[in-house]
C-alpha cells in the first residue's frame, strides 16, 4: 500500500457566485497516474485550478496530509500544473522556457539544472533541436512537449495535466502518453484530466468520471474502461477524439 500524496475532500470552487465544483473528493497515491474524464464543462479545468490554489477553494486539499497552501506554496512543495493553454513564454526561446521551469529550484546547484535539462532533452529530442527557437514558432505537439519539459525542469513530485491531448494529432497523443507512462516508472505521480477518455484510461491506474461538478463514478481504470455507462458515453465503439 503506497501513501496518499494528494487528498481532495468535499472541494467546492467556482468563479464569483457561480459554483462549479459541488464537493469533489479524490485521491492520488504516490507513483500513480490518476485520470479524471468527463465532458466539456464538467469542471475539469476548475478542479485543476482549485487544487493548485489559482482559485479560492472551500473544502479540503491535502498534500502529504498537510493542508495545501497558496499556488506559490504548491509549486515550492513540488506540485506543477501544465494548464490547458500551456501558458508558455511565447516570445522567449525554448531554452529560456526550460530554464524558467527550474525557477523553483534556482538555489540548487547548476549541475542539478543541467541534469534536469538533459533528462528533458532525452525524453523530447525535438526540444534540443529547437532550443534556440521562440516558443511561439513551435507546432502544437512541440508546444505540449515544451510545456511538459518546462514542468519537469522543476523536478516535481506531482504533475497536474489539464487536457494534454487537446488539439494534437493522434500519433503525437500516443507519444505524449507513452512519455507519461514512462515518467510514472520513475516515481512521478500524475493527475490528469482528459476528454480523450480512451487514451487517459489506457495509461491510468485509477479513474474518476466528473460530470456537472460532481464525481459520478470511480474505480481502477481497467474496470472503468469496461463499465457500460463509460463505454456508452465516453468510449463509444469507434475512435474518440
Amino acid at each position, binding site marked *: 500500500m503506497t501513501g496518499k500524496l494528494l487528498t481532495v475532500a468535499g472541494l467546492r470552487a467556482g468563479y464569483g457566485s457561480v459554483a462549479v465544483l459541488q464537493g469533489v473528493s479524490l485521491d492520488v497515491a504516490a507513483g500513480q497516474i490518476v485520470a479524471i474524464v468527463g465532458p466539456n464543462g464538467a469542471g475539469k479545468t476548475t478542479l485543476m485550478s482549485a487544487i493548485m490554489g489559482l482559485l479560492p477553494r472551500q473544502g479540503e486539499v491535502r498534500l502529504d496530509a498537510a493542508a495545501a497552501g497558496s499556488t*506559490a506554496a504548491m509549486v515550492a512543495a513540488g506540485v506543477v500544473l501544465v494548464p490547458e*493553454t500551456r501558458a508558455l513564454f511565447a516570445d522567449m526561446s525554448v531554452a529560456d522556457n526550460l530554464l524558467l521551469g527550474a*525557477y523553483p529550484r534556482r538555489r540548487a546547484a547548476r549541475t542539478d539544472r543541467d541534469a534536469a535539462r538533459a533528462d528533458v532533452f532525452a525524453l523530447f529530442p525535438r526540444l534540443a533541436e529547437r532550443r534556440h527557437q521562440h516558443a511561439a514558432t513551435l507546432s502544437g505537439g512541440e508546444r505540449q512537449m515544451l510545456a511538459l519539459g518546462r514542468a519537469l525542469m522543476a523536478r516535481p513530485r506531482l504533475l497536474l495535466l489539464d487536457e494534454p491531448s487537446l488539439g494534437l494529432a493522434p500519433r503525437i497523443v500516443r507519444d505524449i502518453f507513452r512519455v507519461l507512462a514512462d515518467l510514472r516508472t520513475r516515481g512521478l505521480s500524475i493527475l490528469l484530466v482528459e476528454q480523450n477518455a480512451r487514451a487517459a484510461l489506457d495509461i491510468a491506474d485509477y479513474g474518476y468520471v466528473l460530470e456537472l461538478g460532481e464525481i459520478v463514478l470511480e474505480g481502477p481504470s481497467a474496470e472503468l474502461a469496461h463499465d457500460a455507462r463509460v463505454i456508452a458515453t465516453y468510449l463509444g465503439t469507434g475512435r474518440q477524439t
Partner: protein
Amino acid sequence: MTPFVFLALLQDGLTSGAIYLLLAMGLLIVFSVTRVIFVPQGDLLALATLTVAQLQAGGVPGTLWLLDALALAALLGEIAGGRTTRRTLAAWLIYPAALTAACWFGPRTDPWFAMLLGIAIVTPFGPLAWRFVFRPAADASLLALLILAMALHFVLAGVGMVLFGPDGASVAPLTSATLMAGPLAISGQSLAVVAICAALVGGLRWFFGATLTGKALRATASDRLGARLVGIDAAESGARAFALAAFVAALSGVLIGAVTPIAYDTGFEIGLKGFVAAIIGGLASYPAAAAGAVLVGVLESLGSFWASAWRDVIVFALLIPVLAWLSLRQRAAGEP
C-alpha cells in the same frame, strides 16, 4: 536653415532623444510586467533633479525624510503581515538608514556624491509606489490602474511643490568640457548623456537577456499565468520593474537637469514625451521605442527652431497618426 544650425539642433535633439529613450524604456518595463502606465515617472524625474540641486546647494532634501517615513510604513506593514525577511529589512530599514547617514555626514555638496545620493534617494519611490498604490490593485482593469497612475502623478507633483517650492532648479553638469568640430561646438554634457544612455541600454539588454532575474521579469511580461506556475513571485517582479523605472527616471533627472532647469511640474511633460516614444513602439517593442525617442527629440528640437510656440503641439500631434497606424496594423494582424 544653414547646415551649421541644423547640426546644432540635431545635437540638442539627440541629447533629449536619449533622455526620452530612457524614460520610454522605464515605461515599457513597468507596463509589460505590471500593466501599469507609469505616468508619475516624470514626477520622479523632477524630484531627482530637485533633490540633487538641493544637495549640491548644501541642503538636506525633503525627499529623504519622505523616503524614511514611507520605508518605515512599508517595514511596519511587512512586520504586521508576518512577512519580514532579510530582504525586506535590507530594503526598508538598512538602506534608508544608510542613505540618511550618508546625507548627514557625507560631502553632499560634492557634485558627484550629490548625484549618486539623489538617484539613490529617488529610486526607492518606484517600489514604494508599487507597494502602496499599484500592488493592492494589481488585478484591477487597465483603466483603473491608469486612473491610479494619474492620481499618483498629482500627488507627487504636489509633494514636489511642498518640499521644493515652485521654482525650477538646475544641477551641475557632469562635465563642462566642449569639443570643437570645425565651427560646431559639441558639448561634453551631450556626449556624456548619449554615452550614459547607450551604456544603460546595453546594461538592460544584458540584464534581460542573460540573468535569471531579468528572464523572470520577461516571463511575467510574457505570460502571467505561466510565470505564476513556475513560482515567479508577481509582487517581487513588480517591485523590480518599478525600481528599474524609478532608477532610469532619477538618472534622467540628473542628466537633463544640467541642460534645462526643472521645476516640480516640468517632469510630467518630459515624461509624456517618453510616453510618446513608448507608444511609437506599441508599448511592446524596445527598438521601435528607441527610434521613436530619437524622432521625438529631433522633431522637438527642429520644431523649436521653426515655430517654437508649436513645439509641443508638433510632438504630441505625432501621436495621432502613430496610433491610427498601430491600430490599423493590429487589426490587419487579426488581434482584438
